[in-house]
């Protein structure tokens, strides 16, 4: 009598959304390759640059995805990145400490942030937006307290890491006829590893599934005997860790510490996660989706740069128009899919 509910559920609405995102990314990128073929958009290195430039954001986005799945949010990540960069730069340049100490400091800052914010959110039940807003203020202010000067990192080992190219077995010939092999930096590998690990964690560990349960319904998760507080706490710590790590990757790319660094990065991370299908209300999201969210944002920026004749303000407007187009299309597709499903229910 109720077998009509059965079947055709394999592709649930969430994986459908992810598919749409991936498809749209491919369409956009291929369109760019055709339109801007003569401007090098079709080169493999152009694609790899998306990863190179966004490695830090990717790791931070993964952390954001984790807290967003629990129904939380973290808008401190941009400032934490700045703090991490500043701490790393300061410790290496002004204190003469080693790169390893800097890495430890970066991740340490991230974890401490995770612990404090996590405690406030999970155990004192304070709204995550506010806790992390305060966190954002604090980190930005602390960056200024450490140093208001720009610090350029000149540590040899650091620069060696930052400049260490991993050449890939393919490449292109430039207009002077020189073969240029495609390359990536180690940061890309770390970032992709983070995506893979978080994906596995979300899908195949108890902790991962608890995150989804809490995001779906905190009350229910509690009633089903899950430790909601602890899970949330751990989610923020994980996020803090990833913010620290991502911050350091960001630092490897930007090679400096200064107060204004990574401003607005939290919004980049949030929108990347959202474009990748993560819901701000919690319970839905994947790291792979976030990966594509980051790639889409990167591609939009890259398209605009390649275009190359927009005034400053048109850049912003174009950026948000594409973003708008994307978000609206996504919402319409998922909406009509929901409707259609209701109609064809029986």
């Amino acid at each position, binding site marked *: 009598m109720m077998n009509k509910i059965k079947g055709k559920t394999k592709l649930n609405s969430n994986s459908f959304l992810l598919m749409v995102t991936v498809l749209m990314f491919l369409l956009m990128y291929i369109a760019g390759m055709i339109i801007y073929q*003569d*401007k*090098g*958009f079709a*080169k493999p*290195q*152009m694609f790899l*640059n998306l990863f*190179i*430039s966004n490695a830090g954001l990717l790791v931070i986005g993964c952390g954001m995805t984790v807290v967003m799945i629990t129904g939380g949010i973290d808008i401190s990540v941009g400032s934490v990145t700045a703090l991490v960069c500043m701490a790393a730069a300061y410790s290496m340049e002004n204190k003469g400490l080693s790169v390893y100490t800097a890495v430890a400091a970066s991740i340490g800052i991230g974890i401490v942030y995770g612990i404090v914010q996590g405690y406030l959110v999970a155990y004192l039940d304070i709204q995550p937006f506010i806790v992390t807003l305060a966190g954002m203020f604090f980190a930005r202010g602390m960056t*200024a307290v450490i140093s*208001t*000067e*720009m*610090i*350029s*990192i*000149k540590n040899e080992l650091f*620069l060696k890491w*930052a*400049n260490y190219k991993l050449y890939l077995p393919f490449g292109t010939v*430039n*207009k*002077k006829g*020189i073969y*240029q092999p495609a390359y990536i930096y180690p940061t890309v590998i770390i970032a992709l590893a983070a995506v893979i690990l978080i994906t596995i964690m979300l899908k195949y560990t108890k902790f991962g599934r608890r995150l989804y349960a809490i995001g779906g319904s905190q009350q229910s998760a509690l009633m089903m005997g899950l430790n909601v507080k602890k899970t949330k706490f751990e989610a923020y710590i994980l996020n803090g860790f990833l913010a620290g790590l991502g911050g350091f990757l*960001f630092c*490897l*790319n*930007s*090679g*400096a*510490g*200064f*107060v*204004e*660094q*990574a*401003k*607005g990065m939290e919004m980049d991370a949030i929108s990347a996660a959202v474009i990748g299908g993560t819901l701000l209300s919690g319970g839905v999201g994947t790291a792979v989706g976030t990966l594509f969210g980051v790639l889409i944002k*990167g591609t939009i*920026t*890259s398209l*605009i*740069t*390649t275009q*190359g*004749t*927009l*005034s*400053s*303000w048109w*850049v*912003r407007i174009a950026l948000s128009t594409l973003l708008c187009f994307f978000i609206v299309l996504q919402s319409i597709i998922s909406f009509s899919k929901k409707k259609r499903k209701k109609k064809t229910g029986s």
Partner: protein
Amino acid sequence: SNSKDVNAGSTPDAKAPTDTSKSKDLITVGFSQVGAESDWRTANTESMKSTFSEANGYELIFDDAQQKQENQIAAIRNFIQQEVDYIVLAPVTETGWDTVLQEAKDAGIPVIIVDRMVNVSDDSLYTAWVGSNFELEGKKAAAWLDAYLKAAGKDKDEVNIVDIQGTIGASAQIGRTKGLEDAVKQHSSWKLLAKTTGEFTQAKGQEVMESLLKQYGDKIDVVYCENDNEAFGAIDAIEAAGYKVGVDGDMIVMSFDSTNAGLSDTLNGKITLNTECNPLHGPRVEEIIKDLQSGKTVDKQKYVEEGIFSFENSVPSIKIDGVDYPVTQVTKDLAAQRAY
């Protein structure tokens, strides 16, 4: 001052009809701009755009980084893939360019830095630099103050200064603050009452000045604003509190940039000294590119010459490190001619 001839040469409105096919003889220039955060910056962008027009034989690929260094890094990587002939970079920050400039060097693309300097471990990473010397600007202002006080016979009195700083960490802020601080150290009668940031904006400048006035009142003799917008705000706050600015008033205001609006205020005496910061870099960068095209060597660093504009004329010129800098008294014409 040299600003006049630059003005004259830099506003050609002519735009050749765009040829869709990329003709071979155009020189491609990728320009990564900081953003459009101030009038100064907009003027800077305009100068570049009008210089590197197709009519002049260039194809300009312009990118606005929206104040984010990471965007600039990404843009330079993009330029490299587009195989531009030259990269022009107006860096958001001085620091952190080693990696990406190395990539440009590997690809054999010369990089010209404008405005702020880059701080890299290897000088060969960029070909040339054009820009303002912010510390010198600060020094000029301080030197003028010294001369002005002497001329007025007030150099023995205690002079109380407040510094409304720019956005903390910006090169302009660092240089201008340093210029003042060094001078304060050398003058025992000068006292820096407070320094706090007005973030280069009028609104913050006003708010900060309001607070300073409550703390120090008319004890303040000199308000050192690190750009014109801050000066406008500060002047509003001072006047609202019932004090008078200017040479005969309760305190004098010093400012930087010498924008059109700034010079008007200098003309009417509200700003007593306005040190120029010239945004019209386009022609200078073009010069460098032309030299490079014809195989000449170019100066590695080239400071832009910048004027000093004053309301009054008690100080005709100042001397810093043995170099003379003339001080120009602002005239109506001068103020009106400012394009930015």
